């Protein structure tokens, strides 16, 4: 960006349509290094599509993404990961027939080509997310809460500077959510910027420095959690969603 | 180029296309409902041919009268394959289904080889040598009857799927197996019936071409590839796509035979498959993709 050196993540006019449906329409978004940004909105608002565009799984129809002064257009997901932008998946995708340690080791190999180094790095990450005593367990044997941790651990092991977390708290109970909130807070304090899609309002409001609200693919509000929560358009979007699409996913 | 020759090729192709359509409709039904690719499709067709051969040689039953029996036998085979084998791993990784179907294909092909031997066969029919002249073009009556019967069977399948309760529950199970189970459909039984019908289609197709198409156990693979070609062109899971695709491929092959040497025909068919896989995975008629 021309008007400052702050541009860590800079998204301009991002648009994507599927068939006739506009999934994401001219969304702008900026993040500074160290930011924790919440991305909220009713179901089907286009949040996950934004993640897929940022991480290279989808190509935008229009708009530009710059990450640490680099254009991401045309890059493959693995290139983007190597640049330091890692993501998790809303529906966790562990390598089911591998151990927890091997799951994380695969990710750590991106930065540590030697197997011994990768294993050490993987152990350190498991320590950090509190999964170290599960290291030799098969990933398919984990509880949902632990699988969400594993998903996070794998993304962390690629040593990102920006972490995209897609509903890492969905399906967790209150205790597990508190633990996850503390973990994400610690990751952010450790210097990793976080972009967070979350439905749990308490979690997203307590974690985020700023919040962006999407509805039908468009950004309808942006600001501090407190300001956004009081925004009438945001309330309408959520209430409207409740009444108009009670069962929409 | 001789226009009459081309017109004759076009006509022959179109008439043969009925059989291709019936094969492809069977394959696409199995795929559309269960998302299972029947690698044994061509080998099931071979069994349809040999059953027609047995009926003709042992009981003196003409294939045009005996084909429903062949279809019924293949229905039973398909039903059992789905019920006893495929249903057990319907939720397993895709690779497992592929290997299972490959195993079934190998058993069926070599079973035919052991039982019937490698020599080419042909089934006699009272229609076999009669022809009708349409101006300068001749129409092989056997091919014409085959074409009409194949068309009727495809039409009946259509009526079944859209006009009967079982057909409707089959389409429901295809769209959303979980939802169908919730409203009380025995999804696994519906699956078995669907595989049975798919196999019956290709079995009937086998019996109907047997009078004018010499066959041996090894023709199964070629028939499978032809069916895959048609179904991928027509869009995986699309019935109209399979029907039109069958006519199209048959006409193309028939015209190809006018211009190309026979040994190259097979080459064209496999090369076509490669090109279709690479460039048209969604099908020419825009069907659903797996």
């Amino acid at each position, binding site marked *: 960006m021309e008007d400052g050196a702050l541009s860590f993540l800079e998204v301009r006019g991002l648009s994507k349509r599927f068939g006739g449906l506009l999934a994401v329409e001219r969304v702008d978004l900026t993040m500074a290094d160290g930011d924790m940004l919440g991305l909220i909105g009713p179901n089907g608002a286009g949040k996950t599509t934004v993640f897929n565009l940022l*991480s290279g*799984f989808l190509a935008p129809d229009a708009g530009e993404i710059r990450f640490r002064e680099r254009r991401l257009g045309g890059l*493959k*997901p*693995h290139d983007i*990961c*190597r640049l330091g932008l*890692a*993501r998790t*998946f809303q529906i966790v995708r*562990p*390598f*089911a*027939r*591998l151990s927890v340690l091997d799951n994380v*080791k*695969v*990710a750590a*190999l*991106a930065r540590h080509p030697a*197997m011994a180094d*990768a294993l050490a790095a993987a152990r350190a990450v498991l320590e950090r997310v509190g999964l170290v005593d599960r290291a030799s367990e098969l990933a398919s044997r984990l509880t949902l809460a632990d699988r969400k941790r594993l998903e996070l651990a794998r993304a962390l*092991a*690629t040593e990102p500077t920006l972490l995209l977390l897609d509903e890492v708290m969905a399906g967790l109970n209150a205790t597990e959510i508190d633990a996850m909130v503390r973990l994400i807070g610690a990751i952010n304090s450790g210097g990793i910027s976080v972009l967070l899609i979350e439905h749990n309002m308490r979690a997203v409001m307590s974690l985020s420095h700023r919040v962006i609200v999407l509805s039908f693919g468009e950004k309808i509000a942006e600001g501090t959690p407190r300001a956004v929560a009081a925004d009438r358009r945001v309330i309408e979007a959520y209430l409207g969603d409740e009444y108009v699409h009670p069962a929409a996913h | 180029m001789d226009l009459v020759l081309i017109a004759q090729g076009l006509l022959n192709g179109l008439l043969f296309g009925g059989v291709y359509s019936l094969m492809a409709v069977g394959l696409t039904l199995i795929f559309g409902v269960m998302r299972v*690719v029947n690698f044994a499709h061509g080998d099931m067709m071979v069994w349809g041919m040999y059953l027609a051969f047995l009926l003709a040689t042992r009981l003196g039953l003409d294939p045009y009268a005996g084909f429903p029996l062949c279809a019924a036998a293949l229905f039973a085979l398909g039903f059992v394959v789905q019920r006893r*084998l495929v249903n*057990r*791993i319907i939720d*397993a990784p895709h*690779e*497992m289904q*592929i*290997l*299972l179907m*490959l*195993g*079934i*294909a*190998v*058993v*069926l*092909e*070599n*079973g035919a*080889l*052991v039982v019937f031997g*490698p020599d080419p066969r042909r089934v006699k029919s009272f229609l076999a040598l009669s022809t009708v002249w349409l101006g300068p073009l001749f129409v092989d009556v056997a091919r014409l009857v085959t074409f009409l019967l194949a068309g009727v069977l495809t039409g009946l399948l259509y009526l079944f799927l859209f006009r009967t309760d079982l057909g409707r529950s089959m389409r429901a199970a295809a769209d959303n197996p979980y939802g169908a189970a919730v409203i009380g459909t025995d999804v696994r039984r519906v699956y078995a019936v669907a595989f049975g019908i798919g196999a019956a289609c290709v079995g009937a197709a086998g019996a109907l071409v047997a009078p004018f198409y010499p066959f041996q156990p090894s023709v199964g*693979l070629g028939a499978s*590839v032809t069916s895959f070609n048609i179904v991928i062109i027509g869009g995986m899971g699309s019935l109209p796509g399979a029907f039109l695709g069958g006519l199209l491929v048959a006409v193309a092959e028939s015209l190809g035979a006018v211009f190309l040497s026979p*040994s190259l025909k*097979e*080459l064209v068919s*496999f*090369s076509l*498959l*490669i090109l279709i*896989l*690479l*460039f048209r995975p969604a099908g020419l008629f825009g069907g659903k993709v*797996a």
Partner: protein
Amino acid sequence: MRLWPLGLALVALAALPPFIGSYAVTLFTLIFFYAYLGQAWNILGGYAGQLSAGHAAFVGIGAYVTAVLSLRLGLTPWIGMFVGAAAAALLGAIIGYLGFRFGLRGFYFVLLTVAFAEVCRIIALNTEAVGGAVGLYITFTGNPAQFQFQNPRAYYYIALVLMTGATVAVWRLERSRLGAYLVAIREDEQAAEALGIDTFRCKLLASVLSAFLTGIGGAFYAFYQFSLQPNTLFGIPLSVEIIIRPIVGGAGTPLGPVLGSFILSPLAELSRSYFAATGWSGGHLIVYGSLLIAVVLFLPEGAAPFVARLARSWRMAR
């Protein structure tokens, strides 16, 4: 896993030939050879999870290129086999490039590999320069410089070296970065991509490596049999032979193809000679097909993990 039993088994196999008859030598040679081919397939099919049902194409290319170089240009197969393997690797690169670039997965990839193998077969059948349908015949001279040996035990040792070498290579691959990446791709390709793995490149490498090793196997086969026929070397039955051993033994494990070959190759030979005697050609393939079905239904991970569990419980019981 303890390695000494394997080392012991290898020493025993190396010491065996003087004590066994020529039929047993042939049988073991075939066991080693099919274990080798299965191991080569294992890289692409077992580790990377890309089911190829057309690996016969690589056998055929390796065999034909090596044989033609030897017959027409007098190039010794000891060098020619690497040219043949390189040609097979090139075909592996083409199939892999097309298949993976166009995102063909599951049965679409299976169909692509079958189609390429069949195209190769039909081209070989119709190319008079390589003997067409008659095929090529290699005159036996017994000259070791031409990869020909008076003593059949030489083939035994070459096949044993091939099997052992490929197994060690796969064992090391499993512990390497590429190996870890291939397994990740097999388990979940998108998740692997998200973790910084260049999935296209890794799959392509696996395809090239697998095809190269299979091509070497083709060269061995041609000079072991002294004859090359398109239907045998490029045909679906050979592809089935190649796939079935690692799957029965345990795909994606270093010992799976070896175990599978020790189970299946004797069975194949026995049923082949039995069915040949009864005039039932194709009978052994029925056995294969049934085994494939049974393994998928009852032992989906193959025999290797099963045997490993047995060995573990046996050790614990002591």
